[in-house]
């Protein structure tokens, strides 16, 4: 099976600093793949390169067999490569429903329609409501995003991504800022996504990573150190070294 998302020799430099160091990443279709690494390893930079927010200094990115290295971010999103942000990037003065409806409408290709109101389009509203219901956000549908707690806002971040019907979903620390009780629920939702959605997850919470991931890549100083099954990674001495700073014998 050919990988759904792949990079070849991906490099990104900022002046003299190498943020991404010849990364060859390969994500299989339907994977539950986690990307871990210490702070500053360049995980978010990698996501930015994959989605097209940043341009690589060298190397290639392939999405479902297509070379998307020069493709702008919005086109990749339209192909099904969807991401969430580590820090919420929401529409603070829109209501929850308005935000998700906007995402649904864009995905449906209605973004250039300028005559009929968005709010009059029943299919869009229904789909947005269904997403909100699934994430238990429906009760807050009319709340202005700004007025919600951060944990609730995090769910909106996920809702926006789901509204785009992703084929490949890149989650950048989805549990960050979410109280522990709620993060379990969040992961249940993610875990229940069907297999035709491929998931690449960045997370720091190792419990969640090991419960969810079927494959783990370890990123250190911009380079891929290891990639293997969770049991192998969990006991690998080099991983412990990288995280704890010294080898434990």
């Amino acid at each position, binding site marked *: 099976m050919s990988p759904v998302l792949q990079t070849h020799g991906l490099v990104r430099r900022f002046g003299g600093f190498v943020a991404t160091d010849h990364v060859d990443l390969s994500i299989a279709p339907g994977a539950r793949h986690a990307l871990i690494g210490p702070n500053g390893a360049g995980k978010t930079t990698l996501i930015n390169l994959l989605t097209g927010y940043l341009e690589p200094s060298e190397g290639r990115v392939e999405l479902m067999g297509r070379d998307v290295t020069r493709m702008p*971010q*919005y086109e990749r999103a339209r192909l*099904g490569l969807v991401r969430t942000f580590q820090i919420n990037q929401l529409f603070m003065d829109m209501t929850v429903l308005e935000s998700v409806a906007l995402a649904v409408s*864009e995905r449906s290709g209605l*973004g250039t329609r*300028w*005559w009929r109101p968005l709010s009059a389009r029943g299919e869009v*509203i229904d789909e947005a*409501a269904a997403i909100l219901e699934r994430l238990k956000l429906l009760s807050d549908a009319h709340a202005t995003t700004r007025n919600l707690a951060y944990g609730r806002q995090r769910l909106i971040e996920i809702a926006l991504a789901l509204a785009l019907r992703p084929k490949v979903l890149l989650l950048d620390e989805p549990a960050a800022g979410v109280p522990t009780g709620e993060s379990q629920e969040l992961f249940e939702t993610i875990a229940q*996504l069907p297999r035709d959605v491929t998931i690449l997850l960045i997370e720091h919470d190792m419990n969640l990573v090991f419960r969810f991931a079927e494959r783990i890549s370890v990123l250190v100083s911009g380079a891929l150190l290891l990639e293997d099954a969770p049991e192998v990674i969990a006991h690998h001495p080099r991983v412990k070294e990288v995280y704890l700073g010294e080898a434990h014998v």
Partner: protein
Amino acid sequence: MTTSNPIGTPSHPHPGAAAALDRYRRSARWKPLEYLFWCLPVLAYFAFPGNYLLLSQIAITSLFALSLDLIFGYAGIISLGHAAFFGVGAYTVGLLGSNGYGDPLLGLVLAAAAAAALGFLSSFLLLRGSDLSRLMVTLGVALMLYELANKFTSVTGGVDGMPGVEIKPILGLFDFDMFGRVGYVYSVIVLFVLFWFARRLVHSPFGQSLRGIRMNALRMPALGVPVNRRLVTVYTIGAGYAGVAGALLAQTNAFVSLDVLSFQRSADLLLILILGGAGHLYGGLLGAIVFVIANYLLSDMNPQYWQFWLGLILVLVVLFARGGILGTARLWIESSRQRAQSRARTESPS
């Protein structure tokens, strides 16, 4: 080729949510207050028969403010030079009128086209760089046009105004009279039609995407939105609207002079929109009404006093009433609604 819907089809939303959803579905419909508002121009026609020229000015300024609201209130593009498009529209009419092509509707269309073309071309200058450089580009373009018009006074008439502008009757039937009656009705009709289009635009998916761009331009490409394309489109439309406003001014007065391109006009427009409240469509109209009437009532005032108070109001609005008239009103309504809701919740445990 889309994936299956990972969420599934909607089942049964909660009863409370159903009512709220219904409210949203109806949110684009015309509200009673809006009907009331549009009675005002009609009432004014009968109530102030001696002031048609002033009323026309209100309508024209409203349209101008509406054009800025589209690009700024909805798309978030700061412009210090919106008068450029107003002036292009006005001068288009002037040039047509002084060369025998004084048909008003033709003038409107060509003015809109010229202004929109300029808007389209200059929009590409706005896509790169920070807010500051965008501000300066809009300012620079307007200043360039002003200088051009100032230098070619043989054509434009400079500060004294273009000579020999003749406007033909509308549809060959309605001649512009010297009391401005025809001009007023004409301006209001044009304003209403363009307002109606703008209203549909902002409620449409396209309009909502503009709101998204204003609130979080970073998020939008991640939602699959070609942001630059949308900005170019709305800037072109906004420019076209401003051009129509300028054309109306030139047609109702049969006169166009250099001040249609002035920085003062751009700055006053910003003030009007901020005063009324940006991003509500009606804010610009409200601001225009207040501004033009105040200007008229205080016209005996020393122009320096007027400018001082303008400046002071601007400072105070920015510091204390940032949403302008409509924005502040909306905040009050929302906070009193929230207080009523929380009171209801504490009083009736369910």
